[in-house]
């Protein structure tokens, strides 16, 4: 896909959301918005890691930060938008996972305590 847009008097083409081409002194220079890419990767990681004891929250918040920092002049790039959305979803999923895990742990510990008490009574 090749879309063309005018920016600051220079012809700039966007090959894909992550790569823009700038015309500079007759040469074509490829410039990647690395922060947007990092945001997207962190966002995807946050969803993948959402079940790993809150690691998804770390990755998700990093995705949100990178997405915010990637915006310079142009509106938020597609990668950054993807990173932002996946990051927020990752944070929410991680929080839900942490809450569920806490309840499960509490339930297991409660059952364990009951079993121990029963064992104590039986021994007496």
């Amino acid at each position, binding site marked *: 896909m090749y879309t063309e847009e005018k920016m600051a008097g220079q012809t700039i083409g966007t090959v894909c959301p992550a790569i823009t081409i700038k015309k500079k002194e007759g040469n074509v220079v490829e410039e990647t918005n690395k922060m947007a890419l990092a945001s997207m990767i962190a966002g995807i990681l946050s969803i993948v890691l959402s079940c790993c004891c809150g690691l998804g929250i770390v990755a998700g918040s990093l995705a949100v*930060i990178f997405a915010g920092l990637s915006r310079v*002049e142009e509106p938020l790039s597609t990668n950054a938008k993807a990173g932002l959305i996946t990051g927020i979803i990752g944070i929410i999923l991680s929080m839900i996972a942490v809450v569920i895990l806490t309840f499960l742990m509490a339930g297991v510990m409660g059952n364990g305590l009951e079993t121990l008490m029963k064992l104590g009574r039986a021994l007496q």
Partner: protein
Amino acid sequence: MMERAELKQKARGSLKGNYGVAVGIALLNSVVLGVFSEVLRLAAAMVGVFSAGITSAASIFGIVFFAVIGFLYAGFSCILAAGTVRAHQNICEGRKTEIGDLFWGFKNRPLRFAGIGVAIVAVISICLLPIAVLTAAAAITGDGRFAVLFISIYSAILAVAAIYLYLTFGLFFYILVDKPTKTVWKALKESRVMMTKKRLRLAALKISFLGWYVISLFSFGIGNLWLNSYRICTTCWFYKSYRDLYSRVVIVEPDRLWETVEKLCADYRQKQEETVSHEEKTE
């Protein structure tokens, strides 16, 4: 005069492609400060073992030693802070920046930067002395009502004074790093003049980063590596916008001197009026 959003945009633009250096500087700063504080802690532990409160002379020595350690740490961190600010100024000016710029303060009058750190800690310690004395007195007498009342009012006054001083001399360090030949007093004066009627703007700029820091809390501080650079760069751009407003170097042809001076004066007056009208709008 640049708006807050424009300042932030400029900062992000400057940092684009320089995040590696900025994060490297932040990491190296943390590592160096961590090692230095550990060395100091080890020294303190050794002194604590040797003067374990057996005699009053030993405990006085311990107090003096801990004060010296505090001053040493403040001085050292201030020298590194100078390097950090210098590196970010280089990034904003489009100059070549390296991770080694962190140690810029050690090559450029390090004692002055160390002295500033020591002076800041000394002033804070003196300001907090009444609280320490009153707390000790309340612990001895057992009646803490007056102490609680005094400490509450005194803390509120101190907080207001600290915020006012921070906003007044907020650009002092940036001026001193940007123009190393300036004396400390001149830099303080210049910062006070620059910040006249602009304190609210700086306060708003600083507060606008609160949301970012709340998000970075979720990342257990990892996000701060990027956010700190962003914050410092934005402040550098804030300083740059006013530096360019207040100090301009103009090369003039001798026969057009008065014409140029009049034009510059008119330009300056217009910018000042713009600044004042903007302040009134924001207030």
